[in-house]
């Protein structure tokens, strides 16, 4: 800051962004102290969607928690269920039938695509492009329709159960998923021309909201944020669960192709490339899928042996960890959820200072938060 600007500096103006602001993707309130158009300080205030899920789950049986778990990250409910069920199954030592595991993986990857499509659409809206949103939703709708046909619900499924999945999928569904994969691969190329190559989009995102690798570790960032900063870390590869160790796929990392490594564009492009990897995984799953039961042997009244476990899975937005403390009864004694979004919002005060307000919108959009998961 040179001398002239120093003289022009005035008293900071406090602006509240949110809680009802379309660019905050829910009920996040960011208290911004601005010096003209430049953000001097940003303080996120959360808790507007706090439903005390952790307290609720202490009074529910293990199966009854699943609908609540759905409602945390409502855009990636399948992944939330998968993490929870794997945690409980690991404690119980349940063997999940092979077919069920494959179905779970297909669902988790479809959900990842749906979630990233949502990101793609809303991020484009944040930056002022409206039509990509409609195209993304059209594709997402197909996934939701598929989910509805085998799980019975569009958004909050309660489909993955402890021991397996609720309902079997038919060959017809498999065909439709494969067809969808082919269509999406074509569609993604279209999105690339539409948004990723667009000069205005690049100017808005490149060199904006840089997250360095040390900052990633300091704040415990995971998922696309970590990979966007060039760190090759994906739980599906590094600590495989389900059958991810059998699958062949790449971990997309940020390359800094349009700007600096770790900027908004990198995070965006990591997500777009992740969708292609997800398609690969789905195809491999559907090849390997075999006939058989979809529900393992689970006691009617679930009693998890006393002990504790911390288990994490890779969700569209980052790592989701469940820390379960059980006292051997029918209900969890304590179920703590390590939500990735919660950690990701905490990095915001670090990123905001020195940015323009419009760039702050781009930054918040690129960390892709769901407030249901932040507040739980």
């Amino acid at each position, binding site marked *: 800051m040179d001398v002239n600007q120093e003289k022009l500096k005035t008293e900071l103006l406090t602006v509240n962004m949110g809680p009802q602001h379309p660019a905050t993707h829910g009920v996040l309130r960011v208290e911004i102290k601005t010096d003209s158009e430049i953000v001097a300080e940003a303080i996120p205030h959360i808790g507007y969607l706090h439903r005390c899920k952790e307290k609720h789950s202490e009074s529910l049986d293990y199966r009854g928690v699943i609908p609540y778990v759905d409602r945390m990250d409502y855009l990636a409910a399948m992944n939330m269920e998968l993490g929870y069920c794997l945690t409980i199954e690991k*404690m119980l030592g349940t063997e999940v039938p092979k077919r069920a595991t494959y179905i779970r993986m297909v669902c988790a990857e479809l959900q990842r695509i749906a979630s990233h499509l949502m990101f793609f659409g809303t991020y484009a809206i944040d930056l002022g492009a409206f039509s990509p949103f409609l195209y993304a939703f059209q594709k997402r709708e197909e996934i939701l329709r598929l989910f509805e046909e085998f799980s019975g619900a569009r958004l909050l499924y309660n489909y993955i159960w402890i021991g397996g999945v609720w309902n079997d999928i038919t060959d017809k569904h498999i065909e439709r998923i494969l067809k969808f994969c082919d269509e999406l691969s074509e569609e993604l190329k279209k999105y690339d021309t539409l948004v990723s190559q667009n000069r205005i989009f690049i100017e808005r995102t490149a060199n904006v909201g840089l997250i360095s690798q040390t900052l990633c570790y300091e*704040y*415990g960032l995971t998922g696309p944020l970590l990979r966007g900063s060039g760190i090759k870390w994906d739980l599906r590869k590094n600590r495989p669960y389900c059958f991810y160790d059998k699958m062949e796929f790449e971990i997309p990392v940020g390359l800094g192709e349009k700007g600096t490594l770790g900027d908004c564009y990198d995070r965006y492009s990591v997500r777009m490339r992740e969708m292609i990897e997800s398609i690969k995984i789905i195809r491999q799953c559907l090849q390997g899928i075999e006939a058989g039961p979809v529900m393992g042997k689970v006691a009617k009244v679930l009693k998890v042996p006393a002990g504790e476990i911390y288990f994490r899975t890779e969700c569209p937005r980052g790592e989701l960890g469940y820390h379960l403390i059980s006292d051997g009864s029918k209900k969890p004694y304590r179920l703590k959820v390590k939500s990735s979004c919660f950690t990701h919002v*905490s990095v915001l005060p670090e990123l905001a200072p020195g940015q323009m307000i419009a760039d702050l919108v781009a930054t918040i959009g690129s960390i892709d938060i769901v407030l249901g998961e932040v507040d739980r």
Partner: protein
Amino acid sequence: MHKEISDFLNRSVSGADAQVISATVGDSAIYVNAKQILKVCEALKNSPEYQMNVLQVITAADYLAAAATETTPAVEERIELTYVIASFIKNSELLIKVKLPRGDKNNLPQIDSICSIWKSANWQEREAFDMMGVKFNGHPDHRRILCPDDWVGHPLRKDYVAMESYNGMTIYPEDKLNFKEREFGVRQKTDVKGAVTSISNYELGAKNIN
């Protein structure tokens, strides 16, 4: 692995009192002395052998005192903090546990903040304070995070009772209450408010079956 780490901690931090609780189901954990948590975390982060570079989460769990029964052992009254620490370099994770006295409203349990080691501890500790009422000494921004600032009590404590009203709003309004307090399965004759029960109709239907 846990044994080695606890040996390492006992060696490098005086008074760490690290001891392994190995579990048959789930994860094992290392208990350390609450007073030394800062040094323990520092040692784990800086050790070239373990390189625990990420703090994943801080969990607090509340235990009320309970006498031993036939099936369960006695429970000591305490608050347990679990620090889940992971290494993204060595691909490992570790559960560090400390025990704190439960304290009461005016005398909350205290522990050193580890914000100076990992910045992610900032919000995690705020959440532990908000939900469980653990005070973190040396925290840069010690406020509630999920509940409003003027909320009374710490919701995740097992003996938590919600306030009756908050800023003039009734917390459990009578007309919106779920029937939770009703004894489950009791054969009672009271009607559900707002619903019309007609037993005669049921009898009519039953006759039709016959």
